[in-house]
């Protein structure tokens, strides 16, 4: 008899399938799994692509930086783990041609460089460029646009570098691992590593930086890092994707959050759809369970039968869902192929497992409570139809199912705060919708006497089953809220995020402007359409002590803090704070306090270094010391690309120290000749082309935004299934009801009007409340996660109510249309 169990369940499942009972549930689960795993697969691939992109900015997965030659042991440590290695050597050197001289940052690159990303070269400065897989051939050099302009050379010309003369083969336009500190950049000359000895430039004691670039499998890289960490000698440091380029890390984190949110929304909607389908499934089987009990099935048998069926449905749906999800993400990847220069990496199997597990857990969480109800159905129900299991207990189990969903959401989001915001918003929406639905029910009662028969019937349907109406309104409302979040709020948030880098963001920095050139540079820039060019003095200094305590890198935990302490700071004097600065503690100095030593420190830096208002900082500047208290903390919007400094003093405090000047400005990209002119007029001034770096960053951000949109498309689909499931869950009852009404003489038009009245009312209410919830959620998300100020426009309210009213009326009509044409006799007989 025990052996007959699963077989019976399987046969039963096939019959139920044929009878049209289970496909709805299976479809809900399939869609749930499909959307979650498609999102998972796609997010996984995008994430991997973005990680690859990020490693591109290192030209490797991890880089060992050292002031001394890299010992062979380090190289073999990487090779042993199957990792690719490449080496670079950078040092400053004078480069000349004829009577022209220019200090350049020379970078010698070995075979294999770059391990990640690509180099791009052009035939002339600022001309269209093409990619190159490797650096210059031995015996030739590449120069960047600045060096080419400064020296007036191009491909074919010869340059003197140390002891050798080399021909210029191309103009280097893009170099993936350009150092992050914009202010230390000199013009670039790139050569082959094998040519370095011949230049005789690298001698013992020379200021050079050796880099060992390492790339390969994730595990190999992690292993390599682990093996080296803690065993680094003085001066050696490891740089991974996460340790460098804070602006890129911020972009990656934001993109990950967006994708996490998308996956989370799909999971949430899937849960609602499964809940509705499972509820319907259970209600349909109350009688069947009673008959089974009557025919001799034990409670365990009933539970087993339905649980096995559900497990089978779940397994089938999960498999189908993962397959559909995989296909769907492949389609998305194809859509995005143009946006990605290379192929997207293959997804890991993890999202398949995560998707299937999410589906099964959701199914179990929401289908088991009604199942347990089925087991409680008394056999006496065959004689007394009104006997149904107690709903109170089922409600308690639904609570635990929601908890399970919450846990799933948390797992999907991998970010407690983000999950909490969305769950809180969804939970609040449900609570508000429940309250509003009950309010509607009571508000409708007096209305019913004053409206036509169709409206009366529509309103009566809402009022008669308050519980069911609440579920529908809650589902519509939640679905709509998510749709609103996905379309309007999402669009506005992404726009806000993208608008962080406005089109007129300064795209060039001028550094190394000598004090006697300031007036000339300002005049030159004004003459070329730059409004009020501002040049800022800059003094380099090393942080020596905080509150009299000498600082050293060992005192700090974080990589950023260590690097900040080891590096030279750029100090500046200013009478007024930069436009994008905000004083968050203390106060900026008065106009008269010009010579009173004091510091204004950027808030984030202060936090990293443990500096507070009133701390005394001591800087070493050109062999002298400057010590002063911190009198204000500021926030700085770094991505404004204005000239900003971590540490600022009143003007005059830094008088007498060696000073250069800095400015940034926006130059339309179609006017590159201005730059050449500038460089010729002020040979020692260094021009930094922010545009090149900026456009890479923007490109990455745009790709991330596009990916997010497509990911959200799936959540949108899941939202539609919730609406469909909600309508479907009422079909049986509607069929019977409309049959009764038709036998009483109601015509099709009447029935239709009644349906529309009902759905329009439900939809308008759900839409209004969804708008409120989406607005609140959007503002909360914008503030807390995306660090934006978001004010929802009137469009949100209009589209919320409009979409609710028309969407639900249309969905209701499409979903129930067949009921209207269903032969009443069949319904009555089946009922």
């Amino acid at each position, binding site marked *: 008899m025990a052996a007959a169990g699963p077989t019976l369940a399987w046969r039963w499942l096939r019959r139920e399938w044929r*009878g*049209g009972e289970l496909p709805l549930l299976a479809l809900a689960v399939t869609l749930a799994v499909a959307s979650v795993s498609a999102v998972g697969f796609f997010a996984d691939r995008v994430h991997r692509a973005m990680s690859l992109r990020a490693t591109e900015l290192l030209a490797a997965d991890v880089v060992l930086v050292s002031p001394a030659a890299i010992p062979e042991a380090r190289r073999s440590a990487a090779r042993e783990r199957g990792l690719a290695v490449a080496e670079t050597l950078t040092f400053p050197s004078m480069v000349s041609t004829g009577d022209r001289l220019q200090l350049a940052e020379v970078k010698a690159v070995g075979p294999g460089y770059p391990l990640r990303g690509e180099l791009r070269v052009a035939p002339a400065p600022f001309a269209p460029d093409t990619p190159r897989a490797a650096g210059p051939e031995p015996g030739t050099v590449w120069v960047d646009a600045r060096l080419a302009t400064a020296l007036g050379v191009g491909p074919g010309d010869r340059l003197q570098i140390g002891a050798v003369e080399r021909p210029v083969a191309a103009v280097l336009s893009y170099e993936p691992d350009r150092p992050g500190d914009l202010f230390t950049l000199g013009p670039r000359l790139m050569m082959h590593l094998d040519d370095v000895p011949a230049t005789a430039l690298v001698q013992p004691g020379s200021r050079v930086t050796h880099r060992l670039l390492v790339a390969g499998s994730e595990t190999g890289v992690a292993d390599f890092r682990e093996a080296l960490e803690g065993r680094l000698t003085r001066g050696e440091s490891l740089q991974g994707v996460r340790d460098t380029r804070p602006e890129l890390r911020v972009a990656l984190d934001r993109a990950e959050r967006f994708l996490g949110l998308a996956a989370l929304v799909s999971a949430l909607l899937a849960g609602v759809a499964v809940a509705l389908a499972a509820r319907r499934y259970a209600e349909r089987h109350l*009688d069947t369970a009673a008959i089974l009990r*009557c*025919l*001799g*099935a034990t*409670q365990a048998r009933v539970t087993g039968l339905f649980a096995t069926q559900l497990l089978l449905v779940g397994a089938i749906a999960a498999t189908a869902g993962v397959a559909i999800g995989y296909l769907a993400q492949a389609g998305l990847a194809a859509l995005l192929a143009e946006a990605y220069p290379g192929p997207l990496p293959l997804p890991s199997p993890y999202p398949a497992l995560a998707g299937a597990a999410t589906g099964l857990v959701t199914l179990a969480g929401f289908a088991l409570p009604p199942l347990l109800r089925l087991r409680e159905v*008394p056999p006496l129900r065959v*004689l007394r139809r009104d006997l149904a299991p107690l709903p109170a207990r089922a409600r308690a189990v639904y609570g635990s199912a929601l908890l399970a969903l919450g846990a799933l959401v948390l797992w999907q989001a991998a970010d407690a705060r983000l999950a909490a915001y969305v769950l809180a918003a969804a939970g609040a929406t449900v609570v508000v919708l429940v309250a509003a639905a009950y309010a509607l029910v009571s508000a409708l009662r007096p209305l019913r006497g004053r409206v036509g028969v169709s409206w009366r019937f529509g309103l009566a349907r809402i009022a008669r089953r308050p519980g069911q109406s609440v579920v529908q309104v809650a589902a519509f409302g939640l679905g709509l809220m998510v749709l609103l979040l996905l379309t309007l709020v999402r669009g506005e948030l992404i726009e806000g995020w993208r608008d962080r880098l406005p089109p007129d963001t300064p795209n060039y920095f001028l550094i190394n402007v000598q004090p006697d050139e300031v007036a000339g540079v300002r005049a030159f820039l004004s003459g070329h359409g730059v409004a009020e060019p501002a040049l800022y003095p800059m003094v380099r200094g090393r942080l020596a002590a905080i509150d009299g305590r000498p600082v050293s890198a060992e005192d700090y935990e974080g990589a950023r803090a260590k690097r900040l302490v080891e590096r030279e700071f750029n100090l500046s004097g200013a009478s007024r704070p930069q436009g994008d600065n905000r004083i968050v503690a203390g106060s900026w100095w008065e106009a008269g306090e010009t010579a009173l030593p004091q510091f204004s420190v950027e808030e984030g830096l202060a936090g990293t270094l443990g500096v507070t208002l009133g701390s005394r900082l001591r800087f070493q500047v050109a062999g002298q010391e400057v010590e002063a208290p911190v009198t204000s903390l500021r926030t700085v919007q770094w991505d404004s690309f204005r000239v900003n400094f971590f540490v600022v003093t009143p003007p005059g405090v830094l008088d007498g120290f060696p000073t250069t000047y800095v400015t940034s400005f926006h130059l339309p990209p179609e006017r590159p000749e201005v730059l050449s002119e500038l460089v010729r007029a002020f040979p020692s001034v260094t021009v930094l082309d922010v545009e090149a770096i900026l456009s890479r960053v923007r490109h990455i951000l745009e790709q991330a935004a596009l990916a997010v949109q497509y990911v959200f498309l799936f959540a949108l689909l899941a939202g539609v299934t919730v609406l469909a499931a909600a309508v479907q869950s009422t079909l049986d009852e509607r069929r019977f009801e409309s049959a009764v009404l038709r036998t009483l003489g109601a015509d099709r038009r009447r029935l239709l009007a009644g349906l529309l009245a009902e759905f329009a009312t439900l939809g308008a209410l759900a839409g209004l409340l969804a708008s409120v919830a989406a607005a609140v959620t959007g503002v909360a998300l914008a503030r807390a996660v995306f660090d934006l100020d978001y004010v929802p426009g009137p469009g949100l309210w209009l589209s919320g109510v409009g979409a609710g009213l028309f969407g639900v009326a249309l969905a209701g009509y499409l979903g129930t249309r067949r009921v209207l044409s269903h032969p009443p006799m069949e319904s009555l007989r089946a009922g």
Partner: protein
Amino acid sequence: MERPSPPPILRAEELGKRVTSPEGTLEILAGAGLSVAAGESLAVIGESGSGKSTLLSLLAGLDLPTSGRVWLDGTDLTTLDEDGRARLRGRLVGFVFQSFQLVPSLTALENVMLPLELAGRDDPRPAALESLARVGLAARVRHYPSQLSGGEQQRVALARAFSTRPRLLFADEPTGNLDRRTGERVSELLFRLNEEHATTLVLVTHDPGLAGHCGRTLRLEGGRLHAEPDRPPGAGPRPGA
């Protein structure tokens, strides 16, 4: 009249059923008792609302009495839990209900196979087909309940009830939802199958005509069972009833 009878297959003693509802306490049964021998056919008649269905549910172990006891094939139902009673039902009992109680998502054949499958029969199909053939529905095996008329549905229910060859068959108003002619045909079929299978039949009805087909009739009144005057089997309704 005393005769050396085999132990009764169904016996009830002092059955009481009291239900509490918002309107107050209702005593449906108060000291009802009966004894049914194997192979016997018994009709219980009574007014609508007299508690016939309640009595049947207690006798079949679908519900528990507030007082008194029921023995089914020598087993005291009140000592079993619901699962125990379910197993006993599956082994011994068949049902025919006024509202047919077919599983709507299963075809006629699948409905008939159901109790066989629950009993763990290896190959329920031939037995179910045969059972359906006996009620004259061999041509309708693939039809769903909604595609069958009331009489046909009840015939499927009969086929299902007899498919496991139960020793005891409970029927609650088996013709109550049918028109007179269809009802007569169904009841004819019921009694014929009952005879062929030598099943013990307990039939509950308010229709004295239907009761007249049974060997013995008890009247449920005031929560108790009263013997009806003996009549020859197969006799028509009493004059003046």
